[in-house]
């Protein structure tokens, strides 16, 4: 089982789907209440899923989806159809979730350093990596294991977790992530690499032994 999170580009859509989307957007621009309800019912679940992935709290996720649909109404006149509708809505949901995250009380962030690999003076790995010998498909086959890995992601320092989620899970580009987080692209790359390394450290025991 694998859920595709980033929809195909608009140009990849069949012509029929493109015309359905164009008609929907025209109705939304005309402030048609039935069109808005149809949009909420058709795309709201996917937007809620995005918010759940990023916020990891059901109440916050639902609030973010409400905020996102307010943004949709504000932005609908500016939607030019360059992107697929679902891609546009995905970005709005991500943004709404990030706004909610920024409203949370700030906590002092733990350093990520203890989870990063260490090296000897000659540049060799201090603790040479061992082959895991199991695929992600095999290890994450069980729901309980997926929950454990989500917990490990949640426990990454927040500024690293967000970059990892936007890049590797929401599948945003480096440029999109940098723009959303108001960071340079090089800072996004550094943070993503460290976040992956830290998560890899947490996963090491799970994958090496297959034990939780």
């Amino acid at each position, binding site marked *: 089982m*694998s859920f595709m999170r980033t929809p195909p580009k608009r140009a990849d859509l069949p012509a029929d789907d493109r015309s359905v989307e164009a008609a929907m957007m025209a109705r939304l621009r005309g402030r048609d209440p039935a069109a808005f309800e149809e949009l909420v019912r058709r795309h709201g679940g*996917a937007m809620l899923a995005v918010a759940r992935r990023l916020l990891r709290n059901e109440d916050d996720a639902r609030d973010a989806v409400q905020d996102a649909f307010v943004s949709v109404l504000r932005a609908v006149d500016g939607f030019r159809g360059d992107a697929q509708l679902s891609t546009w809505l995905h970005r709005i949901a991500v943004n709404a979730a990030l706004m909610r995250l920024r409203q949370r009380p700030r906590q002092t962030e733990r350093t990520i350093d203890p989870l990063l690999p260490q090296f000897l003076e000659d540049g060799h790995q201090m603790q040479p990596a061992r082959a895991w010998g199991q695929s992600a498909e095999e290890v994450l086959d069980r729901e309980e294991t997926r929950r454990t890995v989500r917990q490990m*992601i949640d426990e990454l320092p927040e500024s690293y977790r967000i970059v990892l989620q936007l890049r590797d899970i929401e599948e945003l580009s480096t440029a999109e992530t940098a723009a959303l987080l108001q960071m340079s692209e090089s800072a996004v790359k550094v943070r993503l690499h460290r976040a992956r390394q830290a998560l890899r450290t947490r996963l090491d025991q799970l994958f090496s032994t297959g034990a939780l």
Partner: protein
Amino acid sequence: MTCREVFEFLADYTAGELPTAQREVFERHLSLCPPCVAYVESYRTTIQAGRKAFDDPEFAPNAPIPEELVRAILASRSRGENS
């Protein structure tokens, strides 16, 4: 190239963004260093594991939207129009 340098270039390598000359040096190191091969493979698996971790129905694009949330969104739209 040392193991430390392999780790520095790892993200670009896995993204296929390492220039050819650097990639060749990188892969030459891998051909001589089983621990770095193990790390590169586990780094790739980590990326896949992050994605797989959210392969549950509540995080899926076809997740249903609760009816009470639909009603709340429609009500907030009406409030917005009337304010």
